[in-house]
């Protein structure tokens, strides 16, 4: 921990020199724009499945931008990415399975 910049391996170090300020601002703007598009998207008169797909994709894009840029994964050792994606993938799988299980007709609650 608390590795001073000077003692970090050179490969990690180089990126700290040039400022990422402009990049960060650009990404933030992109994220804001995507959010805007999403909000408008729900009112568009397209088929429901298209909008749902679009929304899910756009959110995923935002998600990835934040973790790879703001959270630095892009410049970090790949192990961090692997670590996080283990959790992400298992969570995704579990959520999918749960929704499937409760979506199946055999699992419907009693009609009220």
């Amino acid at each position, binding site marked *: *921990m608390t590795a*001073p910049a000077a003692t970090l391996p050179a490969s990690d170090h180089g990126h700290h020199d040039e400022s990422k300020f402009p990049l960060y601002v650009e990404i933030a703007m992109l994220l804001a724009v995507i959010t805007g598009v999403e909000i408008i998207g729900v009112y568009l008169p397209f088929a429901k499945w298209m909008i749902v797909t679009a929304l899910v994709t756009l959110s995923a894009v935002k998600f990835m931008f934040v973790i790879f840029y703001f959270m630095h994964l892009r410049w970090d050792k790949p192990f961090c990415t692997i670590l996080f994606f283990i959790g992400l993938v*298992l969570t995704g*799988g*579990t959520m999918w399975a749960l929704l499937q299980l409760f979506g*199946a007709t055999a699992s419907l*609650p009693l009609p009220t």
Partner: protein
Amino acid sequence: MDATAKSDFLPQEEHAPAKTFVLWRPIAPTGLMGWLTTVDHKKIGFLYGLFALFFFIVGGFEALLIRTQLMVPNNTVLTAQQFNTMFTMHGTTMIFLAVMPLGAAFFNFIMPLQIGARDVAFPRLNAFSLWTFCAGAIILNIGWFLPVDRFGAPDASWVGYAPLTSKTFNPAHATDFWIMGLQLLGVASIAAALNFIVTIINMRAPGMTMMRLPVFVWMTLVTSFLIILSFPAITIALVELMMDRNFGTNFFEVSGGGMPILWQHLFWVFGHPEVYILILPAMGIVSEILPCFSRKPLYGYPIVVFSGACIGFLGFAVWSHHMFTTGMGAVATAAFSLATMCIAVPTGVKIFNWIGTLWGGHLQMRTPMMFALGFIWMFMIGGFSGVMHSAAPADAQQQDSYFVVAHFHYVLIGGSIFALLAGIHYWFPLIFGRMVSEFWGKLSFWVIFVGFNVTFFPMHFLGLNGMPRRNFTYDPNMGWNTANFVSTIGAYILGLGILIYFIVMVYTYLKGERVGPDVWDGRTLEWSIPNPPPEYNFRVIPTVHARDAWWYEKHHQEEIAQEKAEHAKAEDTHGGIHMPFSSIYPFVASCGILIAAIGVSALDADWVHPGIHWKLGVTLTGGVIMFAGIYLWALEGAEGYHLHPPGDDHTPDATAKKH
């Protein structure tokens, strides 16, 4: 927070920076304060082990009461309510307070030694895990000492199916204790697991690549991943249940549209990985012991490691096999049925490779080896009954019958407990510098082995003969009398065996034969150090050249000696061995959590209840103490001192100096 890192770039001051009273730090105190403030992974591991064994006896005692009640039909040793409390607490205690912490004890004590580290990555976080575990254990058991009508010990079974746990059907606070107890144990386990993950990934000695890690370390890693990824599910389930009970939400409340089945899903999303959390450390231990006593490396190391990871991963895809009778529909049932069967493959791979390890070896039948071999046999039986369960339609007859009880005791006792007992025997000389007598060790093994099988084998027949589990009584005309009677006798024999085991351990601890280092002619790094291990573990951090690192060292002595001398010199020029300061704040924070959790468990759904202010007061006080603990913990910083082990060029009295 990390101990070893910071000092290098902190200015190397001669005197400690000015510190106020609150942030004063003990260096190496002894006595009670020494234990409460310790951050040494070995002491923490020892305490985990001690508490775990205590609760193993408690859980075992509960089991004996269960068996006594079931010895003959229509028995009246326990009332229905007491019996229900007993199996609930027996299951909960054994799983969360005995086997898991016993695993954690080994993770703590052995794992850093095996990777050549001086401590875990976050020593104070480690202490926090320990004390929070204690807090959870206290809350779970507190009900025994409170009036039964309004409090009492939990009695909703270890799976706590909604809506039996709702206020409507379980108004007493017993269930709240169960909720908060498990919640704290979850926090403790997750914190510890995160620590182990970082330690294994980051604190390995030079040359200790991932594919050179001892299998026990690998299984620790996989187990830790299972913990951090499965406990959240039960945490959320418990939060939802707590909200239902105290804040009138509708998660599992049918009148509000809730679906109790959701609890089962969330519970088993946790629950199934949990059973692998219990078995993987055991498999790791066995994978250490077998090569050692066969004097041969583990057969097929990479595939054993891979199959361990595979089991962990698959473990997340099979949870609904505990719910085959909930009417999930043919497709879901079939999917989970097949997925469950798949787990037999990687598990089988492990069994085959263990046999491969024995093959062609020089087997030394010492006590740890006996337990390890016993493990293989018993676990196989348990695994096979698991496969029988995985065939969903057959399971429709077995679920919630004694067949399940037989299955899981074969994997839990014949599996986990056998391996853990083996581990205690195996590492005892390292931890205490004394060795258990072979005769008594083997005797306890045989009594346990016989008792175990006499107890649990008849349960298969009971289950197939239609005896449901969680029954406080049964009628004499069901054909269950003999099997139950035999089983109870077996339980007494088993209890006797365990009694012998513990007496022998205590005797050895006090009076046993003293032995030198590396008694077993071990293969991994923990055997390279003196016993009991010194505070700093390794005089010189080892450099690893091969898989069984210590075995390699023993066979390349000159080369290694030279390397060591160089490293020792380098270390001294840096000012000696760096040790982290002890700290009381993890303990303080855990105490705060304990108080807050007691407050929460006493809360009522009825918010105008007269006692509510008092209870909220307790909760808040706990919260404040917890916050203060964490705050001061953060503030005091992760500093340490330098230590010069005796026997080097420095004056012996300067063993500890602050900087």
